């Protein structure tokens, strides 16, 4: 049922996959964090011609499964490296969530701050970069962090487009050695060990930033 | 005046105490709020608790309502001690007590009538019809007969508080606890609530423990006024004497400030 020898044999492979998982999470988060901010700021554009189409795209992307988005891009863009596709699609999908987080953060900046910026005739760039965003982003860091953790736990979807991340490797090892028990239990344990302390950290940060 | 109502006075036998505090201590951390407090309330008696802010008046009522637990000492209700009892037996003790809160605490998920009938149906086992009849009588008493099917959030503060009084009375408690029931109200709504309480004091022989800053009201309904300070009763007596010639200097200062 459980064989330590097999488990030890599979561990290096699964850990190698874990490296890919971390890479995908890190780069995917970067895409989500940057793109989300861009979407949030564009969402405040003065013209409806930007806001409405943007709203539609955000709604559509975030209410459809990331696994199908991955599949679609992978099949429609042959020749592209699957890991790159995975990072971009995952990042894009999560950018829809992070944009909402930023939006809430920006909305929470008091009106007075905008008015003060106007009163000082700051140019828009400085208003955003120097006044609004520093205040908005600080408060949303824990929420962003939680989305990074969610994304981390969704990286196994990349295995459907042949990225050899952790669960892909676990699956491979499991089927080659008929050791699914060891393979998936190890994968589960690694997820737990990596995500639990991180989410604790976010909770602490949340409490700290609440004041 | 109500306090001279002979019918009520004679109906209370001198030995029957409704509430006894026996060497009650209440501490929060190392802050002692009640310090070996002793006092008794007879059945049918109307007692007003006065004292400076933070002297523990609310704490006394909350201890009686079992919302807090004593640190030391014993509280008895109708001769039965109930400090430190498990939940099941606490419920038996609570049967005798009703409470009206400063902030009304009506249930927003129920209409006015259901706020009043819910506990009689669930706790006392009345039928819906019996409970509704009782509730309508009480709504009549508090002057809100036409509000039975309204949401509590649609009522003024004074109306909400009168519903809360009806809700407490629907359980037919022997003892009614009133904690600054008018202090969350706009000044023009205070009188309506006090009038209802005066009517109840007159029409029933319910025991009342009441914390209030309305000294006129206290004078009208109380048999006895207890002055608290430093976690103890420092002076007590009938309102006429307490308000006109307080013995204790703290009482004099306090009344001088509020009257």
């Amino acid at each position, binding site marked *: *049922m459980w064989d330590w020898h097999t488990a030890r044999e599979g561990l290096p492979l699964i850990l190698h996959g874990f490296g890919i998982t971390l890479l995908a999470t890190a780069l995917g988060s970067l895409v989500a964090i940057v793109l989300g901010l861009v979407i949030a700021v564009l969402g405040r554009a003065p013209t409806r011609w930007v806001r409405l189409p943007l709203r539609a795209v955000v709604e*559509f992307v975030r*209410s*459809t*499964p*990331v*696994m*199908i*988005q991955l*599949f*679609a891009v992978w*099949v*429609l863009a042959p020749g592209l490296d699957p890991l790159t596709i995975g990072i971009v699609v995952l990042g894009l999908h999560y950018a829809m969530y992070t944009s909402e987080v930023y939006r809430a953060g920006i909305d929470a900046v008091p009106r007075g701050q905008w008015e003060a910026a106007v009163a000082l005739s700051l140019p828009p760039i400085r208003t955003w970069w120097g006044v609004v965003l520093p205040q908005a982003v600080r408060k949303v860091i824990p929420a962003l962090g939680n989305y990074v953790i969610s994304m981390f*736990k*969704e*990286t*196994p*979807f990349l295995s459907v487009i042949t990225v050899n991340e952790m*669960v892909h490797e*676990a*699956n491979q090892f*499991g089927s080659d050695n008929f050791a*699914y*028990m060891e*393979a*998936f*239990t190890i*994968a*589960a*344990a690694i*997820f*737990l060990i990596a*995500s*639990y302390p991180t*989410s604790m950290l976010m909770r602490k940060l949340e409490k700290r930033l609440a004041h | 005046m109500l306090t001279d109502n002979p019918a009520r006075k004679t109906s209370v036998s001198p030995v029957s105490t409704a509430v006894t505090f026996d060497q009650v201590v209440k501490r929060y951390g190392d802050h002692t709020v009640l310090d070996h407090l002793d006092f008794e309330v007879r059945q049918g008696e109307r007692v007003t608790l006065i004292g400076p802010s933070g002297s523990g008046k609310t704490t006394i009522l909350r201890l009686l*309502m*079992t*919302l807090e637990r004593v640190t030391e000492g014993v509280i008895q209700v109708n001769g039965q001690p109930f400090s430190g009892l498990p*939940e099941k037996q606490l*419920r038996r003790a*609570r*049967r005798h*007590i*009703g*409470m009206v*809160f400063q902030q009304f*605490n*009506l*249930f*927003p*998920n129920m209409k006015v009538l259901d706020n009043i009938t*819910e*506990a009689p149906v*669930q*706790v006392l086992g009345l039928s819906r019809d019996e409970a509704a009849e009782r509730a309508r009588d009480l709504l009549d008493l508090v002057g809100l007969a036409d509000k039975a099917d309204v*949401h509590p*959030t649609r009522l003024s503060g004074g109306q909400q508080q009168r519903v809360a009084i009806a*809700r*407490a009375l629907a*359980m037919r408690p022997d003892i009614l606890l009133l904690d600054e029931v008018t202090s969350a109200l706009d000044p023009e709504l205070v009188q309506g609530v006090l009038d209802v309480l005066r009517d109840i004091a007159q029409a029933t022989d319910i025991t009342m423990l009441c914390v209030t800053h309305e000294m006129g009201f206290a004078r009208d309904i109380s048999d006895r006024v207890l002055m608290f300070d430093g976690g103890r009763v420092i002076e007590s007596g009938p309102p006429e004497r307490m308000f006109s010639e307080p013995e204790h200097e703290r009482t004099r200062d306090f009344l001088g400030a509020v009257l």
Partner: protein
Amino acid sequence: MSFLTAFVRSLPSIWDGIQITVLATLLGALLALVLSFVLGLAARSRHLLVRGLARAVVEFFRGTSLYVQLFWLFFALPILGFKLVPLACAVLAFGLNYGAYGSEVVRGALAAVPRAQWEATVALNMTPWQRMRKVILPQAWPQMIPPFNNLLIQLLKSTPLLSLITVSDITFQMDQLRSATGDTKAAYLVLLVIYFVLAYALTLCMNGLEALGKARLGQGRA
């Protein structure tokens, strides 16, 4: 064969696929709902042991990826001698994973009901069960609905996993259509639109529930 003809011809199997997907979503959500309440209430228990156990279960199912849980149930559990049909694996995995997230929603919403409401129930001598059922829960649940809706949509978005464990869900059916027609673009677009419509429909239902709950609290339109 044009995509449209093929699409029309395979409508019955697509409809079957939609039904499977919706069934898995609803059953998974039902199990998740039950677990949300069990774990959410347990997290507020007076007993340290009950609280600790609930905490551990929640952290475990939140911390190990849904994907891994599903594969574990599908591939590893049979080794222990428990072989579930694939749909049951999926429902169980959805229920456990989203139940763990949902329990946080329940816990938060219960904690958000003012303490004074609880005090009023004590003053009226209600039993703990009556307090919960008659007063606390009715006030807490409208607050739970928006976060529950988010979780429901996420659950729905996890259902393509069904196709990975041999269930003929909508993703599987559309994939069949894709290989039959060779029109990848159209097939995936239709699939995404189907999901979008499903998500939208679920959101509408949940909004209705929320409005109902709020009206009972006298907050919505009377």
